[in-house]
């Protein structure tokens, strides 16, 4: 709750929350209602400008752009969430294997990650399409895998940095064991980086879905997708510029909101940014004087031996 309040305390957080909240609500609404049937072609109403019947106009087949856009929100949500989940799972497993196992396994994983990072998402998608046929699942899995690898590669360096930090050494020196260090220091301190990477992965997944669908490796023609829509409409952009603007703007908005969300969450969970220095400095400065005189004037040290003697 505190975290949510802090997220919306910033303009970027408000923007991300509003756009993504709207996206989810619209996706839910589209399950039960769209202004028109998004797939119904109407050869008598091609390229109509925006009107009360067709809010955003119609496309080359006379389909209602608003309805199609609305139906496409589902795809966007599925892709963003699905890729996010897969990327998290892959990222966490690979990070754990790459940081917590025997040395040779760790080093092997590092080499493997370097190789996998160089493996293009598009190629993964093409290979999966060749095996399983083009579908949204292919997009989700290929983008999830790619970003899982990227997250693991970035997280590995972060974990190493934290494991060597003074505070982990100090915690170990006070007797904290492996599990304590892992769950109380490594995981919390690596989490912000993870959050930002994850939000980036989800944003890129939305873009990648558009790109892959555009190339024909993503959603089939029976699934409404902003990427497919953009691919269809951009062919006519010279003649009907407004029509391609709708899916383009929708993609841009969601991608921006997702990346900003990561930053907002990171900022909202960092005590260095959320707790004010000043309030304490004001209170801290005067006590610094008395605190000095306590050991200096040392009533405590002198009374204690006095009692024992």
């Amino acid at each position, binding site marked *: 709750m505190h975290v949510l309040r802090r997220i919306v305390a910033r303009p970027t957080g408000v923007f991300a929350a509003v756009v993504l909240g709207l996206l989810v609500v619209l996706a839910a609404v589209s399950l039960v209602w769209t202004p028109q049937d998004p797939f119904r072609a109407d050869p008598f109403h091609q390229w109509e400008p925006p009107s009360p019947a067709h809010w955003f106009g119609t496309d080359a087949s006379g389909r209602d752009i608003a309805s199609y856009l609305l139906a496409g929100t589902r795809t966007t949500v599925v892709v963003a969430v699905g890729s996010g989940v897969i990327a998290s799972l892959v990222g966490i497993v690979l990070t754990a294997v790459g940081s917590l196992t025997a040395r040779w396994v760790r080093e092997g994983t590092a080499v493997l990650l370097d190789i996998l990072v160089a493996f293009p998402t598009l190629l993964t998608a093409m290979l999966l399409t060749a095996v399983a046929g083009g579908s949204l699942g292919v997009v989700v899995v290929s983008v999830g895998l790619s970003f899982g690898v990227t997250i693991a590669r970035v997280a590995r360096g972060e974990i190493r940095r934290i494991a060597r930090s*003074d505070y982990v050494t100090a915690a170990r020196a006070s007797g904290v064991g492996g599990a304590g260090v892992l769950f109380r220091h490594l995981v919390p301190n690596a989490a912000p980086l993870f959050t930002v990477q994850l939000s980036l992965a989800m944003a890129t997944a939305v873009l990648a879905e558009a790109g892959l669908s555009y190339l024909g490796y993503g959603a089939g023609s029976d699934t409404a997708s902003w990427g497919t829509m953009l691919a269809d409409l951009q062919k006519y952009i010279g003649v009907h510029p407004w029509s391609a603007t709708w899916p383009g703007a929708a993609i841009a908005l969601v991608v921006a909101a997702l990346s900003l969300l990561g930053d907002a969450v990171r900022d909202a969970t960092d005590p260095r940014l959320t707790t004010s220095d000043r309030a304490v400095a004001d209170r801290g400065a005067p006590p610094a004087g008395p605190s000095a005189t*306590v*050991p200096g004037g040392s009533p405590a040290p002198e009374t204690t*031996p006095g009692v024992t003697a």
Partner: protein
Amino acid sequence: MTVPTTPPPRPTAPLSDAGLEVRGLTVRTAGRTLLDDVSLTVPPGRRVGVIGASGSGKSVTALALMGLAPAGAEVRGSVRLDGTELVGLPERERARHRGAGIGMVFQEPGTALDPLRRVGAQIVEPLRLHRGLDRAAARAAARDLADAVGLPDPASLLRQYPHQLSGGQRQRICIAMAMAGEPRYLVADEPTTALDVTTEARILELFERLSDERGTGMLFVTHDLAVLARIADTAVVLDGGRVVESGAVRQLLDAPRHPATAALVDAARATARRTP
């Protein structure tokens, strides 16, 4: 607690097992020898200094004593904690002695505390670990400890994050954290170097008081001879990873025998002359 304020002078008695005994400690990493055959003894309740220039192996000595030598380093020799050999122990058993047998205070209080955790939680952690206290009892013990290390208003101060405290307050938290397991020995690695002069004096007083009251033996690493003269009776001088001279602090400072010691003393005198 009937610990005498000043324990009787105890020469490094070979008959007794008591003490923190380091013998022939050698640390090597990939072709480089960081420590070469270092031997020293901290008798129970006494304060022993380790001095040397930068890179002489002071911090490596401190970390190797804790079993926290850099990853991949090869550690040889012997560290005996009141008769128990620590070198070669499996990590799990070694960890049990950290904080309870030997505690450690670091140079940079700014980085030795986890920035994302409230300072109270960082003291509570070793308290629960070593004293087996439940959450409420550990919190109360943390407040007592914060009080003992001279922190004002512990109840509210322990709820702060490290960045909200001053350098001196952070170092007091670190000391409380190191003392939470009631260690018999404390290794302090230049604990006042990052502090201003006034704060340094207060923290030194705290170290003296804790070690006197609780009978904690201390290995005090420093490059500052004024600090050394104040805190320790005996000291070893490190140079290039080796112990080049050892003995009473007075004698080391008044009549240094080794060039490395003499250089440290000269440098300190030069500084003292520049700042009348």
